[in-house]
């Protein structure tokens, strides 16, 4: 290391301050509801080589480290002072942006005629055009439905705005003024970055700062390697599913093999299902250390070492192998709107791998369904449609090695703030009947999972539209760990408690009449450890607080409660009588076990192999038909039986098989 340990800490502080200040400026001046209510914006400083050198941790989403900024830096060079680039396109930027509503800006920062770094930031815009207001619909199946595409272009050249581009951009949005307001907030934030970096260079000199930046990233890399070294060498595999209930996709499998060798780590997603004809695809482009794949590892680093320097040096030891054409590395042109749901599922899967190596740190599965519920009504005076966030809904976190899970929110989407119900009712013609914990939902465990949320509201106006993107875990439960029970599933019910309640499942766009009631019950965290080992007093506390019924205390925990206290004798008897102790590593629940009776790992792997003989765009179609065939069979199908079936279905569609790929390759 060329920079001395004192100066290195000073530079780390200064660069972090700049990134925090960039985020603060955006927060103060940004326009869209996503900035203020859901912190869906970000900012960072990028080194000349395209790696993130500093990112905020106090404000904004903490998804910056691992940004493949080099993709757009190279696309737009050479730069002059005063240039600002803009883009939102996941395909052309190879995974810098991951869906169209994220508008990215960047600015080269010069010192003594040379680029010393770049400011980067993004805001999730409330609308960039496309087929629905807000631009995101789960049922979109190609990027062209999701809004205007902006390839990397210069928004400013030498400080002069590109008016033609701005006009084109704003003409393609339902809310041009707000978009322009957001872009101005982003420019203000980039200008702050430039000024502060200039001040830093004036204070310490360009060479010292440049060297310091490189050293800081090397330092983070070393730190990251130290942390990886604490993970025992091994191969850790885990599988989970994304629920794609549009386009017939069903359960989409994501499979990960986490390989740890010394201070290196490989995330191999071979065996992951193909991309879907819906907006769930996550365009990672298999970029090294991609921010949407690696953020659970960063969480893990920060849990062990909150002081870790927050830059892309951290992800250098992490190699990704994501086969092309899968939901995690789709071919260009796919739809990406709801890719956050996929990202959240990756966290469950990575944690499922890590817990095998690190039983003392990793929690059981969190709710996994993080939905932003939007409500929209016609203004009785103007007739205009008004849209408002009703609530961001999260569920409980998983139980932890030494603590219970967190009720009502989790590590996925833990940055979300809710909307005061008084504000919601004053803004929109709705009546909130209940907003509280979902009782008896927590996954049982030595350390129980966190409860889900129950949110029930009545509409007071006709033609009320409701959308909720990010709903998940309706079919398979959030898993429990080490004897802990899985959490409860998500449920959305129309008109509960009436003669005709309707179980809605996931909703895309729902139209409600005045007086109708919709109830969201969010999924809860899985438990950690055997619930029969839980301290009876803690079980009693949950019963006393009303989160757990006495019946469930008896059934799930073996704790007998009489007249408000623990019946020690009866509890003892019940607990010792229990035939077997729950010790299994993962409990995924009966639904997934039943599903995997049919769709075993071998069968699914064989199907993916056979499908690789067809063009990427047609694989989902063939896949869905084969799956329907298998599901209607009524008895398990062996992998050997599959080939003729696939062939016949493909032939019926008029497809010609190519040679199946021996191994699916990464991009």
């Amino acid at each position, binding site marked *: 290391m060329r920079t001395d*340990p*004192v100066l290195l*800490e*000073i530079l780390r*502080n*200064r660069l972090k*301050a700049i990134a*925090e*200040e960039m*985020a*603060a*400026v955006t927060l*103060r*001046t940004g*326009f869209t*509801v996503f900035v*203020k*209510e859901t912190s869906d914006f970000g900012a960072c400083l990028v080194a000349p080589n395209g790696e993130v050198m500093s990112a905020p*941790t106090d404000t904004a989403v903490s998804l910056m480290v691992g940004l493949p900024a080099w993709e757009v830096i190279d696309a737009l060079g050479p730069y002059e002072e005063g240039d600002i680039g803009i883009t939102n396109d996941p395909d052309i930027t190879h995974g810098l942006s991951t869906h169209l509503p994220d508008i990215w800006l960047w600015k080269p920062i010069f010192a003594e005629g040379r680029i010393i770094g770049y400011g980067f930031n993004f805001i999730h815009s409330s609308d960039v055009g496309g087929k629905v207001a807000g631009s995101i619909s789960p049922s979109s199946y190609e990027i062209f439905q999701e809004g205007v595409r902006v390839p990397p272009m210069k928004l400013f050249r030498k400080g002069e705005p590109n008016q033609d581009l701005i006009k084109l951009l704003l003409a393609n949005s339902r809310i041009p003024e707000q978009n322009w*307001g957001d872009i*101005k*907030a982003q420019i203000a934030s980039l200008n*702050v970055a430039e000024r*502060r970096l200039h*001040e830093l260079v004036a204070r310490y000199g360009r060479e010292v700062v440049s060297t310091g930046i490189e050293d800081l990233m090397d*330092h983070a890399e*070393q730190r990251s390697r*130290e942390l990886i070294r604490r993970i025992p060498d091994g191969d850790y595999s885990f599988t989970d599913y994304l629920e794609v209930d549009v386009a017939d996709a069903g359960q989409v499998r994501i499979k990960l093999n986490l390989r740890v060798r010394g201070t290196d780590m490989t995330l191999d997603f071979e065996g992951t299902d193909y991309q879907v004809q819906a907006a769930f695809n996550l365009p990672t482009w298999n970029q090294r250390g991609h921010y949407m794949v690696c953020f659970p590892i*960063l*969480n893990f680093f*920060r*849990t062990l070492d*909150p002081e870790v320097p927050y830059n892309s040096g951290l992800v250098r030891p992490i190699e990704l192998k994501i086969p092309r054409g899968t939901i995690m590395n789709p071919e260009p042109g796919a739809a990406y709107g709801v890719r956050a749901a996929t990202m959240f599922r990756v966290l469950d899967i990575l944690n499922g791998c890590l817990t095998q190596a690190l039983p003392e740190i990793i*929690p059981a599965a969190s709710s996994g369904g993080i939905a932003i519920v939007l409500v929209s009504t016609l203004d009785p005076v103007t007739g205009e449609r008004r849209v408002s966030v009703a609530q961001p809904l999260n569920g409980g976190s998983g139980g*932890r090695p030494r*603590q219970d899970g*967190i*009720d*009502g*929110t989790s*590590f996925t*989407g833990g*940055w979300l*703030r*809710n909307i*005061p119900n*008084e*504000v919601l*009712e*004053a803004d929109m013609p709705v*009546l*909130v009947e*209940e*907003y*509280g*914990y979902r009782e008896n939902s927590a996954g049982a465990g030595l350390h129980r999972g966190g409860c889900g*949320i129950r949110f029930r509201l009545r509409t007071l106006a006709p033609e009320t539209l409701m959308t909720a993107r990010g709903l998940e875990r309706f079919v398979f439960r959030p898993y429990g760990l080490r004897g802990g029970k899985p959490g409860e599933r998500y449920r959305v019910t129309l008109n509960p408690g009436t003669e005709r309640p309707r179980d809605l499942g996931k909703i895309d766009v729902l139209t409600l009449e005045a007086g109708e009631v919709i109830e969201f019950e969010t999924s809860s965290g899985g438990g950690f450890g055997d619930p029969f080992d839980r301290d009876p007093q803690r079980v009693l506390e949950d019963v*006393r*607080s*009303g989160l757990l019924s006495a019946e469930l205390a008896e059934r799930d925990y073996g704790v007998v409660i009489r007249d408000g206290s623990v019946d020690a004798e009866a509890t003892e008897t019940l607990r010792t009588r229990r035939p077997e102790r729950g010790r299994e590593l993962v409990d995924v629940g009966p639904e997934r076990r039943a599903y995997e009776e049919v769709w075993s790992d071998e069968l699914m792997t064989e199907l993916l192999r056979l499908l690789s003989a067809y063009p990427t765009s047609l694989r989902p179609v063939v896949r869905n038909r084969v799956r329907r065939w298998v599901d209607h069979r009524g008895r398990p199908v062996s992998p050997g039986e599959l080939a003729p079936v696939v062939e016949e279905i493909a032939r019926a569609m008029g497809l010609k098989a190519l040679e199946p790929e021996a191994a699916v390759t990464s991009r």
Partner: protein
Amino acid sequence: MPGSRLGADVGGTFTDFVLVDPTSDRILNFKIPSTPSDPARAILQGIQQLVERHDVDVTAIDYFVHGTTLGVNTLIQRMGSVTGLLVTKGFRDVLEIGRLRLPDPTNYFVEKTPALVPRHLVKEVDERILANGEVLRPLDLGQLHGVVTELVELGVDSIAICFLHSYRNPVHEREAVAYLRQRFPQLYLCSSAETWPQQREYERALVTVINAFIGRRMEEYFDRLDRNVRALGIPAAILTTKSNGGIMTAESARKAPVETLLSGPASGVIGALYLGRQAGYDRLIAVDMGGTSADVAVIDGDVLYSTESEVAHLPVVMPTVDVSSIGAGGGSIAWVDALGILKVGPRSAGADPGPACYGRGGTEPTVTDAYVQLGIIDPRCFLGGRLPLDPRLATEALTRLGARLGLAADELAAGVLDVATANMHAQLMPLMARKGIDPRDFVLLAYGGAGPTHALLLAREAGMRKVLIPPSPGTLCALGCLVADVKRDSIKTIYRDSAELTPAELEDEFAALEADARAWLSAQRLAVGGTMIVRSADMRYRGQSFEITVPLRAEPPGSMAEVRSPFHEAYQRIYGIADEQAPVEIINLRVTVVGVTAKPQRRPAAPRATGRAPRRDCRTIREHGKEVTATVYQREDLRPGDTVSGPTVVEAADTTVYVPTGYAGSVDGWGNLLIEGEGA
């Protein structure tokens, strides 16, 4: 002849006193150790010291303001009453869920702050009021009686009530309070509309619950203090400071103890404002650096207020003087991380064991040890010589740690100060950005034990050119008590489209708020020099989810356009654009009533007629790795007009002022030391 005035501020470690005695034209400043188990005791000891050591006639004290940390400590330690909460049916988890966001969403070991009222003591009441104030379901008194009976059986002796939309229509809360007062007279009761009628159920419920939680202990404390102060013969009524920088009578504080939570830091800023204005500066960044942390507040013409403060990790939405922590204090510990990088804080050696040089068993080097090592602090003169330091212990601690980095004690000490300064700077700059403030336009006013020692280092880093050091930086909070005005904030959420509102309706709303405010002021029964009413409103463009608070003239508006125009201007200032055509909503109306108190009347002292300040000493200090010879002065020797030139150290009873090379200071008529840099 006017009587004398006493200010006392009870802090965590010290209780500070300022006495202004007009007969002898003297100002006394001193501190004594606090007595946390019974905070009133330190106040009484201080008063006794006035009599015994300073020969003060306490029967002439006709004005006595004190600041107490009892409320905030009761909250932090969770030692308040067993409190129950009544909420609207369907909202039992209002406290548990809060605003949902996790304090650190990336840390798997994170815990949410536990709710102040556990779930089994929260009861739902069958009633419902709509957003427009209409009653949807009437209050069921029978059911209310039932749930309160259950709570009483569970040992509850304090109850908070927060029903949905009570800010708009408090009828159910009032009915419930009236009913419960009659049937359960033993309970301490507060309702949310009475406490702070602002829309947002969680925040309103929380301030109500805090009030109920700490109310009982505050009542007992004020009773005891009052008895004892009377017994000593002080005739003045007891006044207490508020988080909003104002004061109120003890009688009011018994009902609204939640308003005292952040009074300590607020008083310091009020003191800073007073001194700054006196010295001719009203754009100040006030930095209070003590043993464990450095706190910062902005004064831009007036004190800035915040409605997003946090106390004991809980949000408090009532207006408070805006004070934020920016990290390191004198006791912050230096350490080396696993990969050999030098870190300072956040751990602090506090007062016990304290820095290594205190000789109380601390072995890890702190910021204070670095000052000693570099010669900035004279170990014989720390806190006026009352706490002799052992420089060898500082050197040992620094040498031990330095060995791990290959640095000598001197080099490490310089590194510790640089890193501590970089930490503070890294916190300060984003904070100022959030307020839209450029520190270079401001004067840094430094106080607290370590503030004047570190001020120039921070100022240089932040590009601030002027630093003001008050004459008694250690007791600024107590001075703030003395110069604060009587003050009360009130709020009403109206949530109306400004186009649907007439100026007359708006005036009626404001007039009602003002009538309440004036009634409160006259109930204080204090002689005030004048009354000020300040109006403001929280407004936004329709469809946006955030508001801006804009000041309005305190007179009937001529038109609604006149009301909207300051909003458009403020919007333009912050966002660079404004839309005069867009519909504007008025969310909250705010009224602040200020009863202006008499301030201590002092004249600036005349400059020294001849000669210059006697230098007491010279000593070697290290700056940037070089030894330089610093002149040493005693603060008490400095007279108006005296100048000092860096490198210089000014020793005082409560702090050490460090003026590095390249800076020069001069003393003004009020005894402030104004330090300016040449190149900064």
